[in-house]
């Protein structure tokens, strides 16, 4: 069981000893029942850190942002950053290390095991509440609220509930955890961060939720026409707000190849180059252009996506974007025995091959 006090003490310790310039963690926000990211820089703030099933974000994103900021800063602060990381978040750090985005010594990983549970999927909760807002979400042990946001030790079957208070309705509902846990948590194979400097919580081996890649496998079962009907609907309603890309720690490219909102222009950029940027897809938010955008993003994340599910979580129109990524991760795992974020020394999925890679699909 993760005691949030331990996380707070550890973070305070790091700051006190000057081992890190800041600690990325979660705190209660003003906006919703869900925790929000925070960056604490002094010992006193450590008390505001929280840890519970509403800590959704993959904070590795902010390691990327920090590096980008330091790169343009006139007075860069290169001290390490501490980060509260779940299993998936630590894999993101693994991929970033594999891709030399920063160095191992630049980060202190405060690992937190999700043990037998995971995080709540706000959209699933919304579906349960038919769009109404949860004002309070806590894990429940046998129907009663646990203390201090702590988690159920060894809860592996998802039978434990999640307490939800609905805004404007003061009664508290208990929903079975497996009904509102995020798909990524239900399918997670490594709920404890393997890459860490410290881990709080136990490594729970048996998690009796869904098989890996369950949702993608379900989606595969549909017929071709059904699959297209589904994805046409999804691509069609995409707003192209780029929240999926903005929230993804792997989408750290200085300029997105497919639809940029950030242009890389330096003093050396010629007028020729500016005039000849490739437009692989147009800005129009219609099916075809959004398809190019999302499919490119999926293929560019092949072997890099660590299934934190952030893209899917933040999508305001609830496109199941994670499916595209997990589909490719499934293929990478089954056909190429490749898992992203597990080995920071391995050559990336697409820049390596094996003689026995599938060949029969080729004429």
């Amino acid at each position, binding site marked *: 069981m993760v005691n949030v006090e331990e996380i707070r003490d550890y973070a305070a310790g790091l700051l006190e000893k000057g081992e890190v310039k800041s600690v990325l963690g979660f705190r209660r926000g003003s906006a919703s029942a869900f925790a929000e990211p925070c960056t604490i820089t002094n010992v006193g703030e450590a008390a505001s850190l929280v840890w519970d099933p509403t800590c959704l974000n993959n904070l590795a994103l902010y390691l990327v942002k920090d590096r980008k900021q330091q790169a343009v800063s006139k007075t860069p602060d290169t001290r390490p950053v501490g980060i509260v990381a779940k299993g998936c978040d630590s894999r993101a750090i693994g991929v970033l290390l594999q*891709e*030399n*985005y920063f160095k191992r010594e630049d980060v202190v990983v405060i690992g937190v095991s999700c043990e037998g549970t995971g995080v709540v999927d706000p959209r699933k909760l919304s579906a349960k509440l038919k769009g109404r807002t949860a004002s309070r979400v806590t894990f429940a042990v046998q129907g009663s609220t646990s203390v201090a946001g702590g988690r159920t030790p060894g809860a592996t079957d998802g039978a434990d509930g999640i307490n939800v208070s609905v805004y404007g309705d003061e009664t508290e509902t208990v929903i079975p955890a497996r009904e509102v846990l995020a798909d990524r948590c239900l399918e997670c194979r490594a709920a404890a961060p393997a890459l860490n400097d410290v881990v709080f919580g136990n490594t729970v081996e048996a998690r009796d939720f869904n098989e890996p890649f369950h949702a993608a496998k379900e989606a595969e079962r549909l017929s071709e026409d059904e699959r297209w009907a589904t994805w046409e609907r999804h691509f069609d309603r995409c707003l192209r707000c780029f929240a999926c890309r903005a929230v993804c720690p792997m989408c*750290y*490219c*200085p*300029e997105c*190849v497919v639809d940029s909102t950030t242009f*890389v222009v*330096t003093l*050396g*950029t010629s007028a*020729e180059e500016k005039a*000849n940027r*490739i437009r*692989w897809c147009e800005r129009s938010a219609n099916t075809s252009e959004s398809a190019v955008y999302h499919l490119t993003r999926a293929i*560019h994340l092949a072997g*890099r996506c660590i299934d934190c599910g952030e893209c899917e979580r933040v999508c305001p129109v609830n496109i199941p974007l994670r499916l595209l990524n997990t589909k490719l991760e499934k293929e990478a795992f089954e056909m190429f025995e490749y898992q992203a974020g597990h080995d920071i020394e391995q*050559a*990336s999925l*697409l*820049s*390596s091959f094996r003689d026995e890679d599938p060949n029969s699909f080729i004429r």
Partner: protein
Amino acid sequence: MTKRTGVFVCHCGKNIAATVDVKKVAQELAKDDGVVFSEDYVYMCSDPGQTAVIDAIKDNNLNGMVISCCSPTLHEKTFRDASELGDLNAFQCEIANIREQCAWVHKDMEVATEKALKITRASVRRVQHNQALEPIGVPVTRRAMVVGAGIAGIQAALDLTDAGLDVVLVEKQATIGGNMLKLSETFPTLDCSQCILSPKMVSVSKNSKITLMTESEVESISGFVGNFKVKIKKKAEFVDPELCKLCDDCTPVCPVAVPNEYDVGLTNRRAIHIPFAQAIPASFTLDEEACLGLNPVVCGKCEEVCDVGAIDYDKKPTVTEEDIGAIIVSTGFDLYGMEHMGEFGGGRYPDVLDGLQFERLCSASGATEGHIMRPSDHKVPKEIVFIQCSGSRDPENHCAYCSKICCMYTAKHATLYKHHVPDGQAYIFYIDIRSGGKGYEEFVQRSMENDGVIYLRGRVSRVYEKDGKLRVMGVDTLAGRNVEIDADMVVLAQAMEPSKGTAEIAKILKIARDKDGFLAEAHPKLKPVESVTAGIYLAGAAQGPKDIPETVSQAGAAASKVIALLSKDQLAHSPMVAKVRDPYCTGCEMCVDACPYDAITLVDGKASVNEVLCEGCGSCVGVCVRAAIDVKNVTQLQIHEMISAIMA
């Protein structure tokens, strides 16, 4: 820069014009953005055609040119040279292939014209984004390496030194000479193999420009054409060749006997041995695997008897690094293993031999001193059966290809047999007789007519031992009957295959192999001695089955290619290489991992291309998720423009 693109559409006589409305293509393209000149012409590659290109460039001040004609493999160079004469950079000229890829494969004029238009239009869009490029100059190390010192390697090395080049000759075995050394006589002239080979071997040993490294193998290579760095590993030299005086006091005391490679296993040798009397280098050598003395507690006999103290068990392998400008690979062949020929008793019956073993039986330097006798009982075989295409031309079970030399050497074997055993009878089972070569057909005819060799057209189904004889079950398809012969000896004309280690050397040197495992030439017709890697050439049977004259020719050809290459002060490397778009690169190293040439490294956290190593394959482009790398003149922008042009 304002685009001023010119287009020429070639009729190629009627070759293109019969199916493609070349005038229409030219007229349509004239309307395209940036096209300021577009015409058709009957033969672009003719002198007037080329002059028209030069004039069009000058008259219209063109900064891009597309010639819509035949495959770029044919005339890209022609028109790029012409462009240069018109003061247009060669790389601003592109070829649109509307002959092989269009006119010749379609009949409907309307359809073919439409496609030709698309192909040409795509090239126009591409050339409008081409940059002027200059070949990359690379300094040259005027020193060559030859890997494998059989007849191919020896010939190549000698030819190279004749041109004044220094040569490192690397041989895996303890002596140079290769397979040719094992041959008795050679077809069709029947001159003695050793007699013609050993003078060349001696020339090698006496040649001060050749650094001979026997019992050595290439360990790794880096660098690029003109500037390779090669690491060569030499086995521990337990016997000092400078000190060894060939007294042969050591072999009698050696307690270990192993099969003698030189005699293809027909005789044994000791752990300490000289491969054969005329070996080059002339020295005894110690077989590391067989010797007991490397553990001095067990044995140390040879060291004890060596008066000059030439033997030192404590020697270690050495690795040297050589600077090399060009490489010839001549690693030769092995015979296809007898163990594959179970139906012929290969590897099972001592009197079923392969071709090389039979050569040793015929050779005066062989175990039997040139007397043909059965290994099993030393009796002279009175009935002998030769089976051709043993393991060759059998795609289902063995090798698909023809081993080329077997027809001839089997005829030679039968002839030699008759010379040794005049009262014996030789039979040859064959599928076809392939005797293309000077004097070859006459030689085969002689063997039939003068030596009474019986040629049976058909396959052998089985060979088995019966009553001390080898019963050969075959079929004579010409007579349409089954044939059974009780033979005393059976000789299998085993297929040639690339020598053991070919795969490894190909991998180390980064040269391709064909589907049969032989080293692949860069072009089957036009670049038969070049490998796909610049600066590495091929000679001899490592590239494919061939006989001695052909091997010697190819070795000479490879040597002359190297001589030509190394005669320049600088080499020109294609400038169509990868270029990193610095601001986009994040240093993730995916391109570094993907590059087959190790041409990309990280410098200050960004990918950096060694333009001399880069071959422009674009593997880096295919893996870079940031589009931070492009191959010059085949950029992603250009591909995008080509797709647009085709789909518009």
